[in-house]
């Protein structure tokens, strides 16, 4: 309980320090708002349309592959922690698990899903 209390206090500190700094800075700073000052920066020209446009799909593909491998990695952690008590059988088990996934990885590599187009 004490340890989680301390982490909770650290979380509180981590929130309160930037908040106090921002509020303090709010009172100390000058404020002269002009139309061109609050314009979005676009290398000196007037901004052309909104930035909220459709994005390239290649980012999405990486995110999808990432989720698959993230879940795989999450399974490796309990394995690594319990490793000493499990012995050789667990090693073979994990090898099998990773080999099956590596088939998919090799397929993705071969099909060029990992390439940046």
């Amino acid at each position: 309980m004490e340890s989680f209390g301390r982490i909770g206090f650290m979380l509180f500190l981590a929130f309160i320090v930037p908040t106090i700094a921002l509020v303090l800075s709010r009172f100390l700073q000058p404020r002269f708002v002009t139309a061109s000052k609050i314009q979005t920066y676009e290398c000196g020209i007037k901004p052309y349309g909104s930035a909220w446009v459709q994005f390239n799909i290649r980012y999405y593909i990486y995110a999808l592959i990432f989720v698959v491998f993230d879940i795989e990695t999450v399974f490796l952690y309990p394995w690594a922690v319990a490793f000493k008590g499990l012995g050789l059988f667990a090693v073979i088990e994990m090898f099998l698990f990773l080999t099956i996934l590596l088939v998919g990885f090799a397929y993705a590599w071969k099909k060029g899903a990992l390439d940046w187009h």
Partner: protein
Amino acid sequence: MEVLVQLYTAILSLIPFEPVRNAINMLVPTLAIASMVLGIVFILIWWERRLIAFVQARLGPNRLGPGGIFQSFADALKVMLKEDIVTADADVILFTIAPILVFVPGLLVYSLVPVGNGMIVSNVNVAIFLFLAISSITTLGILMAGWSSNNKYSLMGGIRAVAQAISYEIPLLLSIVGVIMLAGSLSMVDIVQSQNVWNIVRQPLGFIIFFICSLSEVNRIPFDLPEAESELVSGYNTEYSGFKFAMFFLAEYINTFTLGALCTTLFFGGWRFPFDNLLGDIGLQLTAQLGIVWFILKTMFFFSVVVWIRGTLPRVRTDQLMAFAWKYLLPAALLNIFVTSIFAAIGFGVFSR
């Protein structure tokens, strides 16, 4: 117990009431480590500027205080007085939350890192896992900053930061598995105590992968594509000014210090004096009494290496960046796990304990 911890315990025992003592024992160590980290960050900024100036044959800030060490404090004060501009098209709420959300995980992870012998906010037994979980929140803050600015460069920088962070997170997660396997625990204190032989000897490949990936996670050169000033002005923080910008800046330095701290803890024996178990009583005493000194020295060394890399290497290209993570680091990290698990299972040489 460490000298500082002994001092603290002695003072604590003078306080008469038990509830008061418990409350103080909850607040003071947390406050001490948080302020230590925030203090170190100011020194780090000055140190990086001096060091990079040395690499580039300049002097760097040398006016304020001995060797210019108070420069960053003056800069912090200055940035406090600067106007904080919010553009007309920005999403105001997210725009304000984003810098805080980037800053919070940076400081929060220091509740899990042992900075000395017995000097830790809380020794939870899932520390490393929790550390990785907390630091994955940073990505969300950067994406939020990029999106809420409604600026093309910001959004581009934010998206790049996320694509890079998720690509390098997998090898990062995998490179630590070997260390956990050898320690048999996720607690950082246990990992440091298990390193009678430093993990760098047993996990050289793991360390290299870990270092490269964390360099990429904190967006330092040569992986600073999210803030590539030649392409994206300033990346995800283009529209930020005043203290909100300083928030991102501080978070980046805290994260870089965390990189060094993690390298130290996981691969270089944490707070332990080099070869302390071979030096006999002197070595063990040095480890036990002055752990925080060795920890900070080692961490500063890794921070200096990061600055050195910044002074030396050019920035990588996006396609190289992605290909490097998926086609080299990921297979290498898996190979590291394979080899480590076989060696550890048959108890080969330094892997035997």
